[in-house]
């Protein structure tokens, strides 16, 4: 193992360029509740991996979507496992994010200079909820269709411009194939990319400011 690492290090200079990162000091009196943020990120990566695999077989069209989900579950090798991983990673991701938020709140880690990082975290959380909402439609079954019908109809209650907002969400007055494509695009492109950028900011600020201690 040592030899393999040395071989790689000699060629890529891994230790040199990451020396400061690897040798940096971490407070040793942090409790296990400080794991929740890392756990959430772990599940985010697992969502990305399982999502990429699902996207190889999923077909985002009105006619094909339901059939492709049936195929992923029944025919594709281990497809049912990947689907299960994606679904459960989403649930565990949200649970860890809630626990992480509670931990940050209890340890008062939102005080300046970390106030902006708290806000970045809340924004990420909102986008995560939208990811859950858009992903729910993709199986294109009864449950998905009607949940989206009700969910997007909420926008209609806004005075004056409610119908316009709803049409933007649905890509038309009804939940249709256009809505499916729209939600698919949001779910696999816009939202994950935005979340990744926000998380990069989130982690970079933690690195700059250090981990907050209980006061």
């Amino acid at each position, binding site marked *: 193992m040592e030899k393999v690492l040395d071989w790689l290090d000699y060629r890529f200079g891994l230790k040199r360029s990451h020396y400061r990162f690897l040798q940096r*000091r*971490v407070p040793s009196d942090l409790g296990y509740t400080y794991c929740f943020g890392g756990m959430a990120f772990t599940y985010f990566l*697992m969502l990305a991996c399982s999502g990429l695999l699902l996207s190889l077989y999923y077909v985002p069209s009105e006619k094909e979507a339901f059939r492709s989900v049936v195929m992923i579950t029944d025919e594709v090798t281990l497809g049912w496992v990947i689907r299960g*991983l994606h679904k459960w990673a989403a649930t565990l991701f*949200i649970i860890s994010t809630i626990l992480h938020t509670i931990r940050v709140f209890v340890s008062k880690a939102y005080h300046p200079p970390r106030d902006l990082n708290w806000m970045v975290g809340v924004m990420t959380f909102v986008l995560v909820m939208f990811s859950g*909402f858009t992903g729910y439609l993709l199986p294109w079954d009864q449950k998905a269709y009607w949940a989206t019908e009700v969910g997007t109809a909420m926008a209609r209650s806004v005075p004056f411009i409610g119908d316009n907002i709803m049409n933007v969400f649905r890509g038309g007055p009804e939940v249709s194939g256009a809505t499916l494509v729209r939600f698919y695009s949001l779910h696999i492109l816009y939202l994950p990319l935005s979340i990744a950028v926000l998380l990069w900011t989130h982690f970079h600020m933690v690195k700059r400011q250090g981990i907050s201690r209980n006061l």
Partner: protein
Amino acid sequence: MKHDKRFYPDYLSEILATIFICFELLVILALLYTPSIGRQIDFLKPFQPRPEWYFLWLFELIGYFPGNTAVIGTVIIPIVYVFLLLFIPYIDKGEKGRLKAALVGIALLLTFAIFTLLSLL
């Protein structure tokens, strides 16, 4: 204060152990409770929609605001909820800041928890 530890190898090994446990938990849940295939869309059959568990509280809340007041449940409460959460660092200002922030935080958490429970009853 105790001595700090190094990221590598002390902290990194703990991180890897945590990742391993997270992955184990995920695999166990995914294998035990596989997601079922839903019913194909059929506009003739009535269907009672139900959102994912983290939206249940909102789904329950909407039920309390019929007709013209619907906008309170669908738009105003969610927006106020997010903004309160967003501005927690600025609510916690001054002498009793922490108390105010704690009340807001607990209220937000309870709103989520209570209405989720109500929707399950």
